[in-house]
């Protein structure tokens, strides 16, 4: 349902990848591998539409994403390096805004999501009073309330403890099982209950230098 054809991107006169083709269909998990600086984050940002400096085609259900930007955004969940959580606001306020910007309001899901991540009772505490790991969990709570079908996760396991990692892995597998698609980068060895396809950017670097 989501495909990239002949992607090419260079940064500072260095080719990050060229002739990159892949597609992902419902129920699949795709892991992007590569050394630091190999362009994993750049690739994910290109796929989301945050980075327009590429050539090639990206399609969602057969249509070019730039033609159906708003529809595609409604199907997309992107977790980047930055938490997208305003520290002056409470988790509840942050998540309410996130849901509303995605066109729905679901307080029940927000409370369940926060409780599942061990943040019950923290709903109305400003995020700057929380620890880094807790802030990360607030950011991940967006995953639990999101209704997107395509998840693009950039290093989702950062700053999570062992239990958090296992729970997130279970979430990813569950998303794939219910017909979603997940593209992620991580340096951690994935232990998912579903098959994972791998793209290795180091192999694909192409004509670099």
């Amino acid at each position: 349902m989501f495909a990239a054809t002949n992607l090419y991107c260079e940064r500072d006169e260095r080719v990050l990848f060229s002739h990159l083709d892949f597609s992902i269909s419902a129920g699949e998990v795709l892991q992007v591998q590569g050394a630091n600086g190999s362009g994993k984050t750049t690739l994910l940002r290109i796929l989301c539409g945050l980075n327009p400096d590429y050539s090639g085609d990206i399609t969602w259900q057969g249509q070019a994403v730039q033609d159906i930007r708003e529809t595609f955004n409604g199907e997309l969940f992107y977790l980047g390096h930055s938490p997208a959580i305003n520290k002056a606001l409470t988790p509840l306020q942050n998540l309410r805004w996130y849901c509303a910007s995605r066109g729905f309001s679901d307080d029940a899901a927000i409370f369940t999501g926060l409780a599942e991540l061990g943040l019950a009772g923290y709903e109305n505490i400003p995020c700057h009073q929380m620890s880094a790991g807790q802030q990360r969990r607030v950011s991940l709570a967006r995953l639990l309330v999101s209704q997107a079908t395509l998840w693009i996760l950039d290093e989702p396991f950062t700053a999570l403890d062992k239990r958090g990692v296992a729970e997130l892995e279970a979430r990813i597998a569950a998303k794939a099982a219910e017909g979603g698609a997940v593209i992620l980068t991580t340096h951690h060895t994935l232990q998912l209950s579903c098959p994972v396809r791998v793209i290795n950017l180091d192999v694909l670097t192409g004509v670099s230098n």
Partner: protein
Amino acid sequence: MNSQPKLLTTSGALGAGLRRELQLAVRSPGNTINPLMFFIISVSLFPLGGGSDSVYLSSIAPGVIWVTALLAVMLSMESLFRSDYEDGSLEQLLLSPQPLYFQLLMKVFSHWLVTGLPLVLLAPLLGLMLSLPVQGYLPLVCGLLLGTPTLSLIGAIGMALTVGLSRGGVLLAVLVLPLSIPVLVFGTGVVDAALTGQNFAGLLALLGAILALALSLAPLAIGAALRISVN
């Protein structure tokens, strides 16, 4: 997650965005108060430095209030996109399925509500301090009411372009101040016309026309500038 989520219309989503901006303004009141204090203090320096001759003061009053209001609006721009840029909320805003044009319009409007509107409401008090004649107050407030949203919209374009730079303050002023000259000229013109007994409705209409132009075009420019900045 057994409950049914409630679907929101675009206006519902924008309302939630407005609520977030106002909550943020309450949480960090400095963003509202600092430009306002700057406005009050700068204007009150003029009677101290320029002499207490009320005829002289009243002749420079419209210009002083307008120029200081312009600078205060520019000063307040820093808080418009900065925190959203730093924590990644801006990326999520750009990836939202809601129309970006209206989201940005809402964002600038809510920012104006907490920074620009207080300036407008305070202006008559500062007019009093500069012995502005009584027939000048209404045109001053009307002019600022039409002019400060335009200044916010123009400032937002500059801020969107410079938000990725660590020290964009001076660049912002260089980019934005020339663009705000028409607003300044017509804004002070409205008050001067009223003071000399002329009809100022035409000049107000011009300010309104500039606002309409900014309302229709600025969000497009802000959106394009933000896409460059997050990259």
